[in-house]
């Protein structure tokens, strides 16, 4: 069976910098940090991390109430990001309802804000009379994906993968496979998540959240740095519109990159502990899927969240395959860890680095950790032509994903 080639023809972003891919890239290129101190975290006993990166400057009111009423914040982010991607791809609403467009959008967890309201009624008030009819639709596992479908009139297949912090990258990979197998011509793919103190608390209790920079939020997280002390929770949504090359050419669509390889694997040894061996397996499978060798990769966008073990394990895995020369950077220093959105938001940034022939360095990486610095950690903005890039998403929760992009402009 001849697989179809899959390209990216649209992108949309809701990030801690605000709305839009242009704002995301402008902020990353300027080395800005989206991390802020969150006062409400200080009031919660046992939570030592008081920093996060929160979405700002969006207007949910642009979504009609009839659609917005079943949305938590993460669904709002997803809809706005999808609208941007479709606008960039110049896809009409008629095209959305033609059956050729599908959706693969997931989150790490359902809306905790909405669950909290439900349990306040249930446990504290012991009275469900105030529960709105739309509450349940905000906490269904496929809420983001279906709300996008409903708002944009998309009637192709809808899937809602959940693979913790690997979700966004995995969703793009699954969309790539669906198109490659000819099941849909186009797929809106990515991850979305909304911030809640529960997320910070969950990382904090396992000593994986940054706690030492509450008074200097812009200095954390610090991927690969010797003074890193954990992740900073964030929120947002990144959406890639994938399309078969055949369909994109037929439409005369602008093509931003090609997806040539994908792998997603499990680390069954431990749900929490990162493993260089399983990361290496995942990256090798992606290379195999793309039909390229390690020396073909010009840039690696790491998962690297700034946990002590995770960054070391990923560095080891990268070194085992790629040695010390391939440039590696993480965007968590700018964005924090946008959870399910991280893979897809960082893929968008990587595609734009390919377009601009540059590598964005890791923010807050000042003194590379001795146990990470055997790979080529990028600390300054570099001009570099990127033909192939590798994106990693190695989740707390045991699921790994790696995806390989090819610059379409540089290799037609």
């Amino acid at each position, binding site marked *: 069976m001849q697989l179809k080639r899959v390209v990216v023809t649209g992108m949309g972003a809701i990030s801690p910098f605000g709305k839009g891919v242009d704002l995301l890239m402008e902020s990353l290129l300027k080395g800005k940090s989206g991390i802020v101190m969150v006062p409400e975290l200080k009031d919660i006993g046992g939570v030592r991390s008081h920093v996060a990166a929160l979405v700002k400057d969006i207007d949910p009111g642009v979504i009609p109430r009839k659609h917005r009423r079943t949305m938590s914040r993460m669904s709002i982010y997803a809809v706005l990001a999808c609208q941007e991607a479709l606008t960039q791809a110049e896809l009409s609403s008629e095209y959305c309802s033609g059956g050729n467009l599908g959706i693969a959008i997931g989150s790490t967890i359902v809306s905790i804000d909405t669950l909290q309201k439900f349990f306040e009624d249930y446990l504290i008030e012991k009275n469900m009379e*105030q529960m*709105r*009819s739309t509450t349940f639709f905000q906490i269904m596992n496929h809420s983001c994906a279906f709300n996008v479908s409903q708002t944009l009139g998309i009637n192709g297949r809808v899937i809602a993968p959940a693979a913790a912090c690997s979700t966004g990258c995995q969703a793009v990979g699954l969309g790539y496979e669906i198109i490659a197998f000819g099941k849909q011509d186009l797929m809106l793919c990515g991850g979305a998540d909304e911030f809640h103190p529960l997320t910070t608390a969950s990382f904090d209790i396992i000593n994986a959240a940054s706690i030492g920079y509450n008074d200097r939020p812009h200095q954390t997280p610090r991927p690969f740095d010797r003074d890193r002390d954990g992740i900073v929770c964030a929120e947002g949504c990144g959406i890639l519109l994938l399309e078969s090359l055949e369909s994109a050419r037929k439409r005369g669509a602008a093509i931003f990159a090609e997806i040539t390889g994908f792998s997603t694997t499990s680390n069954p040894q431990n749900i929490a502990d990162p493993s260089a061996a399983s990361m290496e397996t995942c990256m090798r499978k992606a290379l195999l899927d793309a039909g390229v060798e390690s020396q073909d990769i010009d840039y690696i966008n790491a998962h690297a969240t700034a946990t002590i073990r995770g960054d070391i394990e990923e560095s080891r895995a990268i070194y085992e395959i790629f040695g010390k020369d391939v440039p590696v950077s993480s965007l968590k220093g700018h964005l924090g860890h946008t959870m399910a959105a991280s893979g897809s938001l960082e893929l968008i940034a990587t595609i734009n680095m390919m377009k601009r022939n540059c590598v964005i360095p890791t923010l807050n990486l000042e003194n590379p950790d001795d146990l990470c610095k055997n790979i080529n950690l990028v600390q300054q903005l570099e001009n570099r032509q990127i033909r192939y890039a590798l994106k990693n998403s190695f989740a707390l929760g045991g699921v790994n994903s790696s995806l390989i992009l090819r610059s379409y402009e540089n290799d037609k």
Partner: protein
Amino acid sequence: MRMTNEEIIQIINNSLIKEFELDSKKMIPEAMLYDDLELDSLDRVDMVIVLENAFKFKIKEEKEIRDIRTLGDIHNFVINKIRDIERAS
């Protein structure tokens, strides 16, 4: 103090406008809930909660609610309910 019918109608309209983001110009008694105000079955459920909160009464189990079709039907239903309560007290 006893509310006038006009005051009750105003409270109803304002509550529904706020909850369902309705256009105040469309709030005429003849307005059909589904066709003119573009409400649906989910909104109908929430409308009961909105009215119960606005007037501090319980109407969820009232059979007459099922017959409501227009904004005017809501006005009449609520006014009658409030007058019944006043008479009972």
